[in-house]
């Protein structure tokens, strides 16, 4: 029997949906006699127990502390849980919060670590995690020789959130002592979108760093308009101030929630960009690099120059 632990997360008192994806990831490798426990740190952890009581979960560990994000506290929780329960695997979503605490917890435990894991398997009895490398152009299988515990951060939007109702026991755990070095001071909401609606758009033409220069952006605004598309962009375009942030598609920008047709020009297809558009039914990728990872999620691909294609496309609208 092995213990598997998921660290569920909340933000400002609201459960992170991605917690259910991490549960699904461990459910997939769970053996019949393994125990899957889900730990949640919150001001009112019991309030989340219901939502975490999904099929496959044997125990919810409720740790009553604060809703503020304190990496030092979560690390102390992980260390304590690992010492008490000797889990073979601890998993948490590869969200921004985990970026702060997962590597620090792993070195404190001297355990195995793989981040942004998009696949898990057991090979000859050994846990093997799959992640991507070289800007998503290759996959890497890693293992953890000699490690009794392995901490994994799970790429989001890969595993279908766990569902179905289970009836786990709920255990209370006192928060461990932690030397907390951070203080939550408040939130800064995203800037006003100024009428740009990436979330509502059905047809998006999106430009990435391939556009090269600010002076080239205007023609894509015009092309988008003539085709009846909303212009979107990748992060560097917004960071450069070439287009407003409200047009940025991806993890730290907008989710193209209602999009049916997404044309990506000069976008490489980073995991953070894909976060906002991978689900779209029809993705068309235009890129000069035939190995660009955007092609791996596209329905149609054009290996070519975005300027030549755009110029020709104008003649049709």
């Amino acid at each position, binding site marked *: 029997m092995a213990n598997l632990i998921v660290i569920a997360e909340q933000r400002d008192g609201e459960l992170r949906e991605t917690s259910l994806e991490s549960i699904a990831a461990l459910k997939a490798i769970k053996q019949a006699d393994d125990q899957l426990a889900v730990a949640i740190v919150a001001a009112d952890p019991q309030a989340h127990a219901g939502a975490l009581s999904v099929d496959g979960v044997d125990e919810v560990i409720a740790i009553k502390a604060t809703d503020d994000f304190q990496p030092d506290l979560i690390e102390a929780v992980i260390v304590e849980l690992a010492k008490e329960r000797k889990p073979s695997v601890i998993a948490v979503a590869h969200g921004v919060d985990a970026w702060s605490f997962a590597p620090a917890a792993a070195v404190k435990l001297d355990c195995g670590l793989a981040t942004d894991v998009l696949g898990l398997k057991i090979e000859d009895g050994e846990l093997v995690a799959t992640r991507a490398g070289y800007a998503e152009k290759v*996959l890497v299988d890693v293992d953890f020789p000699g490690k009794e515990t392995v901490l994994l951060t799970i790429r989001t939007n890969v595993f279908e959130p766990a569902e179905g109702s289970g009836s786990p026991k709920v255990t209370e755990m006192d928060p461990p002592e932690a030397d907390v070095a951070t203080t939550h001071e408040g939130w800064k909401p995203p800037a006003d979108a100024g009428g740009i609606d990436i979330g509502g758009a059905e047809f998006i033409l999106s430009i990435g760093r391939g556009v090269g220069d600010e002076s080239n952006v205007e023609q894509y605004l015009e092309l988008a308009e003539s085709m009846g598309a909303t212009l979107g962009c990748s992060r560097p375009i917004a960071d450069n101030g070439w287009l407003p942030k409200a047009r940025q598609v991806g993890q730290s*920008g907008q989710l193209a929630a209602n999009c049916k047709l997404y044309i990506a020009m000069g976008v490489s297809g980073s995991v953070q960009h894909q976060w906002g558009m991978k689900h779209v039914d029809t993705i068309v990728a235009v890129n000069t690099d035939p190995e660009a990872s955007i092609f791996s999620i596209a329905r149609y691909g054009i290996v070519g120059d975005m300027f030549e294609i755009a110029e020709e496309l104008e003649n049709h609208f």
Partner: protein
Amino acid sequence: MKILVTVKQVAALDDEFEMRDDGRDVDEDFFEEDLNEFDHYSVEEALLIKEAAGDDAEVVIVTVGDEDTDDALRTALAKGADRGIRVWDDSLADADGVAIARVLAKVVEREQPDMVFTGAQSSDFGSAVTGMALAGLMGWPHAAVVCALEYSPGDNTATLRRELEGGLEEIMTIRCPAVLSIQLGINEPRYASLRGIKQAKQKPVDELTLDDLGLSADSIAPASRVRRMYAPEKGQAELITGSAAEQASRLAEIIKELRGM
């Protein structure tokens, strides 16, 4: 007062590439190497703090890598950093972010900086591990994906914003010294001037071995090992071929059909 910035030389792959014979990495003949994009921002942030302080603040750049990675170090020095440290040993060839952090921790102990900046992630492996593992080893305060920072040399606390999902940001204060991983867009990184590039060649770079840092090959154990590396299965993409005019007219057809135009 001193800010230590860790930088990584990353590899982008050529349009076509082949795996190494042992199947555990890409053949380095197909690498195009450069300073990690994120590190341009962390170096800039350190330089801005130094310039605002105006006194004897020092910006030190450290990289763990072989001779080739001198380029990344010199790129950072050319922007205005004061000196560099490069640590290498052949036993680091299979290092992951945790192993690199173990080396960096010794450098931090030696240098005693007031702040450490790293990139939020590398643009090749993107594991987002090295900086926060370093903080864990040191027992220092830490925050990842920092997109705004108010800090003056000597301050006991810094105020920062962490960039979260969906454009939301959290404002937090943090005790210093701290390890912060710096996000894209926090500032506008400068380009090195010609003069800077010339000067960088003269700037001191300490070349250290594990021995110099009191580390043995066993004390830099990684947290994972690469079993194999491979190209992902090709997606389902239907390639539209022909001249640009032909490709565009096929694309126009697809658009019109799907949009009912």
